């Protein structure tokens, strides 16, 4: 056994991880969530805004991060729709338009009473990395002259009198890299004191914690943050409990648990073997 584990083929580890993630998915195993204070802050921020508030939905991620970020992107959109907030969708990632469109499709299906142009608008992709943020916080029309369909902002009811991003009540950023949350903190939240909350990938989360709570009011870290947010949403809005699409992140926590247990076991095993090798003078 010792000899087998000492020179374990890494393909066994891949197979074990595949099983650890696949079996809970096939079995549909789910576990209860306990929301953390950071996630509760994000939820309360959106919940406490008066109905009809303007919310800037900065969705800076693409299909490569869909598994991790899209559930929270959808949950944010659902929450804003339930609260009847005005949603301004924009992305700084070229392939982010697909993600935004997916949210808009959800709004059309689940909230047919919401009207495009009056309750939500898609401003599409803005090129230039963080450049557009710097511009739109002072003059929206300098960077965005029309929505994704080419309709002038002056002809869209909810953008007609919006001069810049300082005119919104909240920025929600879902980010998977650069440009993303850090850039919104650098160019919008810090200099203009615009209330900002974010949801980001696990890789980014530790590096964004220093901005909480002064520059970022709250943050959802990776799929776990998304699951906790969904839990709060389902708790506050029971009408969503029959909607399986509103439980996407919660569904993904089963594979997370088993994947993490396997990884912990592998780390412990690797260390035990290392110390055994050292004891035997093999290293």
């Amino acid at each position, binding site marked *: 056994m010792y000899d087998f584990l000492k020179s374990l083929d890494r*393909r066994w580890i*891949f197979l074990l*991880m*595949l099983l650890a*993630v*696949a079996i809970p*998915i*096939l079995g*549909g195993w789910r576990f209860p969530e306990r929301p953390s204070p950071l996630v509760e802050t994000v939820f309360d921020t959106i919940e406490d805004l008066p109905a009809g508030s303007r919310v800037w939905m900065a969705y800076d991620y693409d299909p*490569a*991060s*869909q*598994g*991790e970020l899209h559930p929270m992107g959808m949950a944010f959109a659902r929450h804003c729709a339930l609260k009847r907030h005005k949603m301004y969708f924009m992305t700084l990632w*070229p*392939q982010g338009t697909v993600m935004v469109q997916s949210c808009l499709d959800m709004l059309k299906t689940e909230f047919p009473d919401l009207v495009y142009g009056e309750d939500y608008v898609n401003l*599409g*992709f*803005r*090129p*230039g990395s963080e450049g557009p943020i*710097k511009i739109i916080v002072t003059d929206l029309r300098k*960077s965005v*002259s*029309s929505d994704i*369909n*080419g*309709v*002038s*902002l*002056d*002809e869209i009811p909810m953008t007609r009198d919006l001069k810049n991003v300082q005119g919104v009540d909240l920025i929600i950023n879902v980010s998977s890299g650069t440009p993303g949350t850090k850039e919104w903190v*650098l*160019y919008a*939240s*810090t*200099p203009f004191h615009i209330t900002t909350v974010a949801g980001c*990938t*696990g*890789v980014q*989360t*530790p*590096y964004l914690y*220093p*901005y909480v709570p*002064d*520059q970022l009011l709250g943050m959802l*870290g*990776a*799929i*776990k943050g998304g699951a906790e947010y969904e839990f709060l949403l389902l708790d506050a809005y029971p009408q969503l409990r029959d909607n*399986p*699409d509103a439980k996407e992140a919660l*569904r*993904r926590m089963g*594979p*997370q648990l088993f*994947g*993490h247990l396997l*990884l912990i076991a592998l780390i412990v095993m690797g260390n035990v073997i290392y110390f055994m090798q050292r004891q035997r003078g093999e290293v």
Partner: protein
Amino acid sequence: MQRETLFWLGLMLVGGVLLGGRAILVGNGRQYVERVTTTADVAATEGAAAQAVELTDYVNIPARERDAPGVRVSFARTVGIWVAAFCTLGIMSFLLGETPPYKLVESVFVGVSAAYWMVVGFWSEIVQNLLSHLVPGLMRATLLPGLSEKTVPNYWYVVPLVLSVMMLWRLAPKGAWIARWPLAFFIGATAGIRLVSYLEADFVQQISSTILPLVVFGADGSFDVWASIKNTLIVSGVLLGLVYFFFSVPHKGVVGGLAKGGVWLLMITFGASFGYTVMGRIALLADRLEFLFDDWLWLIDPTLQRAGM
């Protein structure tokens, strides 16, 4: 033929036969759609009267409603699901080495990404950001019919046009040095913009956020133990981290001890970062497996797309 190659070939053949059989018998991996027609009112413009335009779209329909009138299989979207499944498996096959499916999918991905960026760059940067400001009338009549009537030519945009042409000059056989001028401009402008923002958000504001009371009292005047511990940890963590990166004094004695504390804190941070990264990667794997099991193979139905079938 090598034993391992034979094994994988056999496995793929068996898998292919099982998949084909299942697709014929169960019909998995099919996408059903319904044609939806809407009418949009187009406002009158100069020289054109107002008119109603009919727009057609195909919306995805859950498989459980496949027998409803007007619902049919979308060939293009069904092929899309199968291609996506093949691409996912092709990329995952990298775990076994640089396999032919991996190389094929990787090449397709690189090519498609390059084309996508080029198209997006043309429409959003050249058309929307540049030409709409330089020749708004022409753009309104051709590529951007929704461009506001209020948009008038802004000849300041000649400057970025000239800089862009200078940038492209590096592709010319002679005078590649001309590209250095716009490059210098972009680097200088970006550095200037970033310097101010980083100073404000990452330096001044971060210092401000670290100036915290080490002894915290609640609103009722009672001693708040946890808030005090939290603040003490934040302040001491920042100071220990700074000591570790302070190399003007040898890391010996008290300074060495503090620097060691800084190293420990850094290690804890890296550990937390690794943990979060693992979570992210497992989430991505779970997403792809869910796609394969749900959309492609119809083995699970978490969103009740096929309930009652």
